[in-house]
């Protein structure tokens, strides 16, 4: 919608915002800073370097507090620049479905489980919880209602938590894909495509390793443009090697190497794929895409710092942490 409606004005209205983002990109962590963090002897030294770089609000904060504040800073900055935040809903739908999943589980076990909900989705987490508790999904957005009912029935009647998760994960991917397509924004569409691709591959590999049946793959895998769902299902039913063979015929042939190495290498490959595809936005001066790319870059940065801090906390060797680090946007 953003890039389609009023081809001229709609894009032009982000010129100021893009210029602000360009200035902010200077503060993004680059490779030398990551090396500096890696070379820190202790976890506390890492926190100090981050605080010196302006992360967090004040010294003495825990890692989790610093990371939460950094995420909040990003969204506060974007809210300052964009009046209609619905442009970025594509990034938030998965949070809604996570909250829906958490609410169904919580209602099912009839116990309050602390800290299972995520903030900042497109739908208030309390509203989602109330909808599940009252078994009335009419207050939820249209794209959530059917999946919510289906997952609810699966959990409450059959007690099948895994199937409940699959239904909601698939619905989340379908929603991200559909809404990104409706937005007409190239970056959002590319993000959605890659999210579906990486989730499908993840699911296909795990399913193939555990010998899942065709019904599982049909239900779990979402449609996208760059992977043929039928081919992927056929390969997943045959085995992991067949998935590698199929992938070698697609544009994601480099995923085979990552998958063969380890699952954490594959997860790193998935994150790097998105970051590398959005890098051209560094040179885009018009449209909402550089803002969306900045959000993804910040999320990637926070994730990388979390991995690094967790490695330092567990006293993992430097090389072991390094191979888990994601590519940076800058």
């Amino acid at each position: 919608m953003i890039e389609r409606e009023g081809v001229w004005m709609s894009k032009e209205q982000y010129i100021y915002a893009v210029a602000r983002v360009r200035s902010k990109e200077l503060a993004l962590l680059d490779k030398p800073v990551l090396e500096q963090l890696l070379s820190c002897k202790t976890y506390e030294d890492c926190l100090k370097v981050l605080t010196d770089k302006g992360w967090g609000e004040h010294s003495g904060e825990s890692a989790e507090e610093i990371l939460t504040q950094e995420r909040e800073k990003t969204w506060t900055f974007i809210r300052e620049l964009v009046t209609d935040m619905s442009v970025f809903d594509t990034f938030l739908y998965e949070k809604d479905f996570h909250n829906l999943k958490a609410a169904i589980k919580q209602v099912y076990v009839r116990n309050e489980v602390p800290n299972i909900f995520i903030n900042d989705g497109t739908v208030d987490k309390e509203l989602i919880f109330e909808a599940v508790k009252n078994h009335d999904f009419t207050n939820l957005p249209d794209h959530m209602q059917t999946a919510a009912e289906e997952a609810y029935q699966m959990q409450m009647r059959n007690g099948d938590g895994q199937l409940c998760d699959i239904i909601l994960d698939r619905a989340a991917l379908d929603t991200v894909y559909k809404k990104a397509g409706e937005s007409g924004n190239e970056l959002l569409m590319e993000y959605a495509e890659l999210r579906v691709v990486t989730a499908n591959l993840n699911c296909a590999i795990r399913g193939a390793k555990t010998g899942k049946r065709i019904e599982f793959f049909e239900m779990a895998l979402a449609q996208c443009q760059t992977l043929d769902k039928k081919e992927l299902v056929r390969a997943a039913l045959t085995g992991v090697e067949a998935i590698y063979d199929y992938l070698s015929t697609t544009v994601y042939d480099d995923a085979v190497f990552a998958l063969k190495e380890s699952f954490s290498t594959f997860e790193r490959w998935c994150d790097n794929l998105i970051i590398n595809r959005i890098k051209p936005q560094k040179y885009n001066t018009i449209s909402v895409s550089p803002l969306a790319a900045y959000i993804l870059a910040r999320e990637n940065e926070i994730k990388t710092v979390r991995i690094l801090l967790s490695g330092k906390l567990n006293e993992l060797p430097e090389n072991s942490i390094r191979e888990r680090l994601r590519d940076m946007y800058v």
Partner: protein
Amino acid sequence: MEGLGIVFALAGAILAALVAGIGSAIGVGMAGEAAAGVVTDDPSKFSKVLILQLLPGTQGIYGLLIAFITLTQIGVLGGSSDMSLEKGLLYFAACMPMAVVGYFSAVRQAKASLASISLVSKKPDQFGKAMIFPAMVETYAILALLISILAIMGITPLAI
């Protein structure tokens, strides 16, 4: 058809100032937004981004110049404004390079300026190079200005 010559000549002059001016206004406005974005976070870059903002503004000045020369040549600012339809159409055509090229070059130059403002916001020491990119677009506005001036001056002595 009598008297229509001056109408076309005047329309040409007005369009040169109007269309090129609109292009410059759009261009300077776009670059100004980006410049304000950079200065919000780093006020020390004001002078650099200001120059880049002003670059798409020249087409408006060229348009004004063409309009002024045409007005003096066709007698609107004094003298006789009697001219044939053919001569009026020739003046109209002579003003068009500045009007059309002025508009499009201003808008495209503004986009180059936006990119250069981004460059300066990240690498202020590269200001010299950043200025060259939008300045290259200026070449075509100057060519249009030149051809419009030559055409207008060449029409005046024609006995048609």
